[in-house]
């Protein structure tokens, strides 16, 4: 490319802080965690709304609960946020980073929903998180596939 070509390129301004990919990755983990908590709360409170039999494999009966509606709202926000992340971050990084929720959700279920579990489930969750790290850790400096 000649100098004239370079000068003709649109100037790359740094993105404003609220579009920072790291911020949106964090926001996604938070929204996913909050939405799962709200959905679980709603599923527990689910009024037995009549659901046609062919849909009985779904959790449609829980849709009447305000908790579930709030959970869906949070989920939709996380979905819009996710579409933005898909445009800006490679999928094999964006997807696993949002898996921070694998630590946040059991923790929140313990603290906020009073769920109790033993060391076996705890160890399984730790293995999952370590496994995630093996998949998502950044590429080494020497190059090579990410």
């Amino acid at each position: 490319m000649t100098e004239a070509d370079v000068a003709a390129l649109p100037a790359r301004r740094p993105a404003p802080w609220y579009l920072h990919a790291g911020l949106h990755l964090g926001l996604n983990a938070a929204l996913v965690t909050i939405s799962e908590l709200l959905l679980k709360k709603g599923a527990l409170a689910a009024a037995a709304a009549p659901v046609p039999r062919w849909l009985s494999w779904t959790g449609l009966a829980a849709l009447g609960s305000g908790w579930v509606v709030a959970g869906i709202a949070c989920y939709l926000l996380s979905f819009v946020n996710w579409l933005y992340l898909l445009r800006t971050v490679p999928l094999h990084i964006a997807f696993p980073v949002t898996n921070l929720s694998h630590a946040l959700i059991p923790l929140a279920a313990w603290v906020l929903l009073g769920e109790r579990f033993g060391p076996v489930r705890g160890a399984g969750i730790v293995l999952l998180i370590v496994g995630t790290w093996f998949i998502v850790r950044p590429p080494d400096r020497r190059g090579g596939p990410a």
Partner: protein
Amino acid sequence: MTLIQLGLVVLAQVAQVAGQILLKQGMTRTVGRVSRVAAGTAMLTFWFLAWLKLLQDLDLSYIYPFEGLSLVLLVFASKIFLGEQMRGSAWIGVGLMTAGMILVGLN
């Protein structure tokens, strides 16, 4: 976990990964964007309805780790359908995650 619940978990996670792949292709292409995003959204809707049912029947801290299945499937799918290259260590991750989910499932 019953066999039916296990089947629902697996189906839901397959739908989730298929949905993610379709969205990724939809958001990074100009041709066929709308149909891919629509199909991806339909897949994620199925996943969501199945998920609500599982949440009704099981602890959140029990069922949530099985979301990890989608990452294991995603490693295979992004290699096959998106042509992304995986390092050898990604496969160690797949093994560890699978072991983790078995432990949670035994619980």
